[in-house]
């Protein structure tokens, strides 16, 4: 746990510094990084950064986060392995409401709640900076370890 945390802090600061560097290097890319916190069921808190237009799934992939089995269908709305749970304030604040197709897939997810979404369908924008989501327990999480 502490080692993991250390790793994430290190990798996060690397990402941060890379973003800073990019800023200095290029004037075209002035997107501010958007911070997202993933709270895993085993208690791990993982902070990562994405940019505007990224989905939460993109954030996980681009940061090489190791979420077993997450995003199996690669964001094509056919698997529900990218399930996340938001608090109701954040849920209501998301710019796009879930489509019928997203709700259909969510219906197959484990631990479905009223504020569940699919991570591949949540698209980041600046006002979502600081978003926290819960990655619900699937069998690969703490309670089975």
């Amino acid at each position: 746990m502490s080692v993991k945390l250390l790793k994430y802090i290190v990798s996060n600061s690397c990402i941060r510094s890379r973003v800073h560097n990019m800023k200095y290097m290029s004037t075209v890319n002035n997107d501010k990084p958007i911070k997202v916190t993933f709270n895993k069921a085993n208690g791990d808190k993982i902070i990562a950064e994405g940019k505007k237009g990224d989905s939460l799934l993109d954030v996980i992939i681009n940061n090489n986060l190791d979420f077993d089995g997450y995003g199996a269908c690669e964001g094509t709305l056919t698997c529900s392995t990218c399930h996340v749970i938001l608090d109701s304030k954040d849920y209501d604040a998301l710019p796009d409401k879930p489509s019928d197709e997203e709700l259909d897939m969510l219906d197959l997810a484990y631990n479905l709640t009223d504020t569940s979404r699919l991570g591949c369908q949540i698209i980041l924008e600046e006002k979502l900076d600081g978003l926290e989501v819960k990655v619900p327990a699937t069998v690969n999480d703490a309670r089975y370890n």
Partner: protein
Amino acid sequence: MRWRYLSHSIRKYSKDANGFQVGIVGAGPAGFYCAQQLLKKIPGCQIDIYERLPVPFGLVRYGVAPDHPEVKNVINTFTKTASNENIRFIGNVSLGCHITLAQLKHSYNAVVLAYGADEDRKLNIAGENVSNVVSATKFIGWYNGLPADKNIKVDLDVEHAVIVGQGNVALDVARILLSPVDELRKTDITEYSLEALTQSKVKKVTLVGRRGPLQVAFTIKELREMLKLPGVSTHFFENQMNDIDKVINDLPRPRKRLMQLMYDASQKTEVRNKLFDILFLRTPISILGTSKIEGIELAVNHLEGERAVVTDEKYTLKCELAFRSIGYRSVQADPDIPFDKMSSTVPQSTGVYSVGWLSSGPVGVILSTMSNAFQAATLIGQHFDKGLLGERKPGYDYISKILEDKGIITVDWNGWMKIDKVEVERGIKHGKPREKIVDIDEMLQIGGILK
């Protein structure tokens, strides 16, 4: 970093993960997800995946409908797992035919059975053997290019087809029968079935289930897809949906949304060119017709709680083609497998594990198969950590000699990549993602190794 390395090496030396040998039987989603997780739970272990066919991916290649290419994206993850240097794919080797469980147990610290559930359940009624009564499993194998099913006989020069069963597999069959054929042309469906479907006269498909609307097994995504099929209208028999709206609001969410969608669909009256009919509360009692099917005699059921109870009332449904799609069953591939005959599954035991449909029974999507495989891998990791799977084992060295002695041509991952390349190239000609090779000998010619 250093801590991590340290803890790895402590683990390595105390339990010797380097020599730890795992043999997996079956290269479907369960086998691959289990391997993926084992690489993490027991770093440094060697994993050999045996597959009866020369090619990997199980039902993702041979079950999942060709018009659902997104579902097949999991193949990318499996391919990544297979590229790990500690994973070996050995295609064209069948447990119970070329190798035995005893030999696997001799060779591996842990044997993981992941060979799925590929036998279809029969209706066991009179007339089931007349022509044009087809197993949905075989029909799916046929359009997906499963070598064993490439020659099955199905006459599509008929107007009305009945499918017995109301799960997602039944909906897959209905959708393939009713889809505009041009939609299928861009998929990896086999060219010969595309030709047959182009000639098909099927205009009406009836889905028959024993129980009522509240008990359907199909999921909402699949139904929504049916409702959106161009040129097809969905009907429900005899006002069977009439009272559903009264209970919808009391249902938990997934059922509630599904019932609402069904109810809304049942209130529409438009008539299109082709028809998709849903009939509840009927149990097939005999197939009519002497050489070829002419209809199905059904018993009318009523519900007692969730259970369907047959009444004396009968109902005849005329049709010229019928599919049975009432579920799958695993077989006992080898007499030594601790097989539970009641449930047709294999329970976990120390040293011999089961994953996927063989473990859970033949229900659930890839997500549930993944969860099941991760869980089993965790259990194996625990057994390893406790030192229950101790002694040194010979692994593939031993099995490869057996295969060599028997003159078995095997296919390794590189061989599969060659087959894959040829299939993709052949697909380009037809404007498809791939044209599957359906002949085992041809697969072996392209990708086989004979020692």
